[in-house]
């Protein structure tokens, strides 16, 4: 079975603080894809990043960075120097090769950035 856990339900930070959103996944497949999506208050789902299971390189994109560690089945997301516009619900998601049609979402972490 595949599962995504995001233990942090809600996080509040003050603007300009760094924040890390945790994600732990479970799958028996050796080939899989991990994603982060952002859902702002307007409700749409915005794709942020995709990682496949063979690529454990960390990635940085502006203020966003992702830390993929296969040994701990984690795919954490860090926002540095947070801004009010980062306030949203963030979903970690998994798609395994044996069921690549289906994206399994975690429960989401609601991030509030306070000015």
């Amino acid at each position: 079975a595949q599962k995504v856990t995001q233990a942090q339900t809600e996080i509040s930070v003050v603007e300009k603080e760094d924040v890390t959103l945790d994600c732990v996944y479970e799958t028996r497949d050796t080939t899989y894809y991990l994603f982060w999506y952002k859902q702002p208050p307007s409700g749409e789902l915005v794709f942020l990043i995709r990682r496949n299971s063979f690529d454990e390189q960390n990635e940085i994109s502006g203020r966003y960075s992702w830390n993929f560690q296969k040994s701990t089945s984690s795919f954490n997301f860090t926002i540095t120097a947070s801004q009010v516009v980062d306030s949203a619900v963030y979903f970690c998601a998994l798609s395994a090769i044996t069921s690549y049609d289906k994206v399994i979402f975690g429960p989401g972490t609601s991030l509030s950035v306070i000015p």
Partner: protein
Amino acid sequence: EPEVTQTPSHQVTQMGQEVILRCVPISNHLYFYWYRQILGQKVEFLVSFYNNEISEKSEIFDDQFSVERPDGSNFTLKIRSTKLEDSAMYFCASKEGTLDEILAKNIQYFGAGTRLSVL
């Protein structure tokens, strides 16, 4: 940038009525999906559609639900007789077609969603 378009943004209906939610996927994509998000909960897979047939569906996708690609651009979700518990945000998503693209990217792009309110 190409995007998935969903209409309407908000649909209000009476219990027992039929509703059709519409989606226009990204034009060169060949895989289509519907997901559901009950308010405050996680996004749940409903169904995937490829080559004019359902490729996978969840236990949520019962006989009350159907999907169709009536023409070359639209992808619809029909709920035959709505129930109160069908109230949710419904997201359409699409993905590129070739196996190479799927293995290289496997990214589903989501629309802005249709909020369905069943009264």
